[in-house]
């Protein structure tokens, strides 16, 4: 093994060490807080672990296991995400290419963007049923980051590249598919990553209004009503970990896709 890879290995080990140290410190603080508070509503790490194992192996009060809750939530979020990207990317491309249209719709889009998904709950109960409710609420979270990043990506497209394409006789379709889209792809991917994260965070709000008793958000709500906070925390931790995993998955994809980008190394 040469010196460079030795050094790499060493710095990897070091950051792993720091990371595990901070996790351990976190659990110690949690444990300390729990034993100080002595409250039935603030469980210590050990009772959360026990609840974790129960939900994974036995299931909740209705018999749904953690894997099942997670899968159902993932299905809803991915569906909302699919609709959010299928609308956000094309509309973003269109608005990025046509600034006059963008200026025309900005006064509508901008205020709507700041309405949180929870505020949409009453309207979606009145207007939508079943799966549409979940998809709509998650769409609200996904759409705007995707839209805004796509517009930003289009704006950053080099004029020289567009003119270069024109000198080869490219028509507008060619310019969009062969220049503007690939050039905006890094920003679009970033928007998708952020959008997926925001959509995932909307899962509790979305499942508040869905009928079925399954889903991570539902799990949290069910046990909140029962005042069993240890299982609520199980739901929270699972949401956090799945969100993290999705984020890393897209980051990994980005790395594979954008090898053409000059790497900026700090």
């Amino acid at each position, binding site marked *: 093994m040469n010196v460079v890879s030795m050094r790499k290995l060493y710095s990897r080990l070091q950051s792993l060490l720091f990371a595990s140290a901070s996790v351990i410190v976190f659990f110690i603080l949690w444990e300390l807080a729990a034993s100080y508070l002595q409250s039935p509503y603030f469980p210590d790490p050990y009772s959360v672990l026990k609840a974790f194992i129960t939900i994974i192996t036995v299931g909740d009060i209705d018999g749904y296991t953690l894997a099942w809750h997670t899968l159902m939530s993932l299905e809803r979020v991915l569906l909302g995400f699919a609709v959010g990207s299928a609308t956000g990317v094309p509309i973003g491309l269109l608005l990025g290419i046509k600034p006059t249209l963008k200026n025309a719709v900005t006064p509508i889009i901008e205020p709507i963007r700041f309405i949180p998904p929870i505020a949409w709950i009453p309207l979606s109960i009145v207007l939508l049923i079943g799966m549409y409710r979940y998809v709509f609420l998650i769409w609200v979270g996904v759409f705007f980051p995707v839209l805004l990043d796509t517009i930003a990506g289009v704006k950053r497209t080099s004029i*020289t590249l567009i*003119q*270069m*394409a024109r*000198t*080869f*006789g490219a*028509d507008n379709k060619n310019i969009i598919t062969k220049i503007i889209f690939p050039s905006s792809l890094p920003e679009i991917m970033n928007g998708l990553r952020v959008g997926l994260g925001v959509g995932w965070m909307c899962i509790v709000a979305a499942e508040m209004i869905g009928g079925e008793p399954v889903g991570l958000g539902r799990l949290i709500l069910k046990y909140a009503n029962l005042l069993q906070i240890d299982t609520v925390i199980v739901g929270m931790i699972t949401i956090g970990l799945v969100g993290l995993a999705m984020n890393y998955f897209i980051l990994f994809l980005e790395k594979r896709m954008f090898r053409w980008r*000059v790497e900026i190394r700090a």
Partner: protein
Amino acid sequence: MDKAILLESVSKKYDVGSSSLKVIEDLTFDVNKNEFVCVVGPSGCGKTTLLRIVAGLEPPSSGRVLVFGRPPDPKIQRFGVIFQEDSLLPWRTVLGNVEFGLEIQNYQEAERERVAKTFLELVGLQGFENYYPHQISGGMKKRVAIARALAIDPDLILMDEPFADLDAQTRSLMQRELLKIWSKLNKTVLFITHNVEEAVFLAQRVVVLTKRPSRVKQIIDIDLPYPRARLSPPFISYRERILTAFHEELEGI
């Protein structure tokens, strides 16, 4: 209409804010079919603007521009334009970049690759097909752009200081290659340069522009057979003549 390029009292002004900048004023000259013409002029005089007008990227503010007898339109005509600034697609490999123009021109996939490889070899970049633009040097990027422009078999080649970033050896190699391509393939070339020696080495005619707003200061026929010897007395005397005209324009800047 047997002129490749015809410019008649072409003017171009840009409106920036409330003021307007006259870049080209009453510019008239023409380029014959299969002719090699160099344009030299001081920096900022409007050479790139002129090239963009000839390529049909921008209309003139007034005057008439005809390329092969019609207003320039790259959708109908085949232009090989080499931009002054970097114009490679960073997400495509060297090979993918050269294939770009062929794609737009609807070549079959197998044909694209074959043609692209031929032209990459011509500019001395075989072996770099799978490199991305950020992995090659500035001069290599220029050569990729040249290969890309030549690959579509253009009727008119428009080059904006294409060899400015190259080292002396590569530059002189590329100049000789360009002359070979030009004489072999019967192309019309409009070549913009800062470098007077380059102009005398390449061109049948050299158009010297005035400083902005640019007009034609002088047109000089270079009556020397190819290949030209840079140290021959007639070469040097052409070079001096053009340099004198060129320097008169530089003084006022």
